[in-house]
């Protein structure tokens, strides 16, 4: 079975107004082949907005790795490459 991937969207104020609001229905916007193995959840605030080195808002975490300036398409790309890494690991 494919390993599951967890995507956590920051729902804090700063992320929300800078595009995070578009990421809330990410679960429905994922392509069908990814939808079945991705769990999307929210976090009240990832706390990254307070760290000037963390990059641009909004923030999303994919299996714990931070993706800055996230959009639907950049999250999908990141989830795809995460899936590839996991699948390669499973084959080896």
């Amino acid at each position, binding site marked *: 079975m494919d390993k599951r991937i967890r995507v956590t969207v920051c729902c804090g104020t700063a992320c929300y107004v800078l595009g995070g609001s578009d990421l809330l*229905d990410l679960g429905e916007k994922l392509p069908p082949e990814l939808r079945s193995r991705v769990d999307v959840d929210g976090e*009240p605030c990832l706390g990254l907005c307070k760290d000037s080195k963390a990059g641009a808002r909004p923030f999303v975490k994919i299996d714990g790795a931070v993706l800055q300036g996230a959009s639907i398409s950049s999250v999908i790309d990141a989830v795809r490459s995460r899936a590839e890494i996991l699948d390669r690991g499973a084959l080896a």
Partner: protein
Amino acid sequence: MIGAFVEVGYAQENKRGQRVPGDTFISQRDPATGRVISALSDGLGSGIKANVLATLTATMALKGVADGTPIEKTAQLIMRTLPVCRERKISYATFSIVDILSQGKVRIIEYGNPSFALFRGGESCKSEHRELLAQRRKGRGRQEVPESLATLRLQYSEFQAAPFDRVVFFSDGVSQAGMGGRAHPFGWGRDGAVERMQEILGENPGVSARELARLTVQEALIRDGYSAKDDISCGVIYFREPRQLLVLTGPPFDKGRDSEAGRIVEEFKGRKIIAGGTTANLVARELGRSVVVDLHRLDKSVPPGATMEGVDLVTEGIITLGHVASTLESRADGSRSSLLLSNPADQVVEMLLESDSIRFVVGTRINEAHQDPSMPGDLEIRRNVVKRIARILEDKYLKDVTIDLI
């Protein structure tokens, strides 16, 4: 009666086809003494003319009572001030004034409205009243008035409120509802209305003033076949244990006080709201609990809410509170947004209005990310939004509000 909270609620339905109510209900609470004065007036006719008469009357009645002017004098003054109706040749608007002094002493003055109902222990009970007479004075250039209207007969009642008493007063749109129908050719009457209120209290003994007023108006509207034949208004005053609500928003200025914020939430007796992502996380950390964001409600006007054990509602901070402030500013008291509260801001509004005594604990640590000039829209300073909300809750909804900064 010390410690009882005086909840004031009212609801209103315009006569069909009218854009404004012909009845006016106003109320004020003196924060220093706790005195609460409410006035209901039904203006002659309907629509704008009635609205102006009723607003004038209710406002003058309220101010007169607040100033300590003898009520007969106030009544005379009102009648002299009101414009004379061209057809009926009289100036006329009814009023009911309920004056609650500290310690629960109640004075009620009524003119022309159905007499109030007092519910004690869920049962309607009679209260003594006496008549006050006020002469309608002949003003310069005024028409002679018929003998029957030359003397104003005011009903005056005075009693000591007991805990959980309810005082209900209403316009004749309530008592005459159903008029002309087969079941009640003259309307279901004051007695019919009072009986129904008693049933409502039997079904739900803890019903809030606001909800009882809303249900009463709804019952009258049903009897009018959902098309109000007159303006229907109902005011309810309920003496009860204050319902407490805590709203914690913002992390403490000094990080060393995070544990205190957690303790405030833990120890508060009443309902609890946490507004703010960082705040929710710090309380969760302090109390060893988890916060779960609810991504299923997709009303995007405000960020999603969350749940945490021991807390009734968890929301985002500034955007949500901004929505709460504007909703409270714009809506009429008797209304309800919808049965399906669609977003966390609506849920906060509902919880605020269902509470009497509200304590805001505002952490003043600034989130520097919010000060970034590239942020779209206006992210206000937290304590200013809270002060705005507190002022509306006090002035418009007569809530008892405190704000503590940490």
